[in-house]
């Protein structure tokens, strides 16, 4: 073709960071809640507060049961439908000033810790590329897909 060049598998792998609800795209790795607590204190708490609450930026825990109230609190625990999104988002975008600086294992760990803050994983829990997609988030059924744009949805 006159335009562009073929992409090599190696370079695609470098950029192919997206993760689907079925776990497709998750890199091999694992991390414990305990390790995540440490990562979080070092890399995240400055903005999100200790325990993911009361920071200068987005609150990450709590709020369950508030969605139908006058003052809903939307957090990973109360609102997010898929745990895979948590890995995907931290991996691509956090920590805010240096995204991509956490290792894959540390990303699993800190995701595990945030889930534990929300009572979704126990304090001694851990997370890996197999267990993550199996987690059923509390608000999994909280979304109504727009009919117009759901035709192509599986």
């Amino acid at each position, binding site marked *: 073709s006159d335009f562009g*060049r073929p992409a090599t598998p190696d370079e695609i792998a470098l950029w192919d960071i997206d993760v689907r609800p079925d776990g497709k795209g998750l890199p091999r790795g694992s991390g414990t809640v305990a390790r995540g607590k440490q990562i979080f204190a070092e890399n995240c708490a400055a903005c999100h507060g200790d325990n993911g609450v009361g920071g200068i930026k987005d609150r990450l825990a709590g709020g369950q049961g508030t969605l139908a109230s006058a003052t809903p609190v939307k957090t990973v625990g109360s609102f997010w439908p898929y745990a895979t999104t948590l890995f995907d988002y931290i991996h691509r975008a956090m920590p805010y000033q240096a995204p991509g600086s956490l290792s894959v294992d540390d990303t699993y760990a800190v995701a595990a810790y945030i889930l534990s803050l929300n009572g979704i994983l126990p304090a001694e829990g851990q997370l890996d590329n197999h267990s993550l997609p199996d987690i059923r988030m509390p608000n999994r059924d909280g979304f109504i897909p727009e009919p117009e744009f759901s035709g192509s949805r599986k």
Partner: protein
Amino acid sequence: TTTGIVGSAAAGSASAETLADVPAREPGADLGALSARSTYVQIGRIPEAGPGRRNVDPADAINSKAPLQKLVGAITPSDLHYERSHSGAPDLDPSKHRLLVHGMVRKQLVFSVEDLKAMPAISRMAFLECTGNGWENWKKADGNLTVQNTHGLVSTSEWTGVPLKFILGLVEKETAATWMLAEGGDAAGVARSIPLTPEIVDEAIIAYGQNGEPIRPAHGFPIRLILPGMEGNLNIKWLRRLKFGDQPWMTRWETARYTQLLANGKARQFQLRMETNSVITQPSGTMQIRPGYNRISGLAWSGHGRIARVEISTDGAKTWQDAQLNLPALPKAQTRFQMDWIWDGRPTKIVSRSTDDKGNVQPDRDSFIATMGTNALFHYNAQQTWSIDQAGGVQNVLS
């Protein structure tokens, strides 16, 4: 307060008593590479941090609103186009920027910016609107807001770039690929799943030009996605990856954000189209009008297509009159409307209501809230009411 009927960027009111007071003609500035704005014009966006968080440190700003009360016509100058950036505006080196197209395609390809600029191109007028536009008025209406505060997250440009369809041909997209992930080269790597409806496939543009010139960094330089009529954040800035698949990826921006929480605690998801909308920009919040003749002017737009009609009420939505539309009204672009009005000096309320060529009518606030509740945060398109008090002061009110 500024003078409502002027609604302009020009400072102050008339100050030369007779023609004798008009300054003498005198030689002006040399001609140069760029035409600067007048030193008498104060015009700029307002960086904000979310509903009610208005005078923030720039480092905390998440969007910057366009000065609708100072704009005329339909086009927004590129430097005044509203901005919503999730991790600031990177100034990417175009020679090092790439677009990777992969996933469910027969040919996985990498394009440089030069590759894209060499392809057949299309230009069209289209509005972009942040999903959060209007979010100041979900629960209450602060009386001291301008239309820049209430509606400044919408702008209209002429966008130029490559039709997505042309790229689909080059990579030979598989028929089973019904969704496309678009990802930005910003620090946040903002990514959205886009359903490949016929309309989106036909109209999507990989754009490099805005109003004739290269897109500016705040708006996605060197390339961004343009999806006319669809919510702002789908129009991925600093575009660097398109991946084809058969289901949505459920990124943070289509689950945690940009979903609309209803009163029952459920949230609407993939409500991608920006709805039929309008707002009166002259006179509008914090302006001052005088009894007698006043021209009412404003902007209407719809993600469904062309604006077909705008009605104005000057008695608080009791009776309505057709406004005059500035033609041609282009599909999925803002359309300017105006109407003459003689204000009798008594307190009243003015409202606009638009209808598009598909028959969609902009809802009044009560029916809108009855459907969406007050927690939805995004996709607010209820009619905007401005109250006018005895002294001619114009204020933001719910209805």
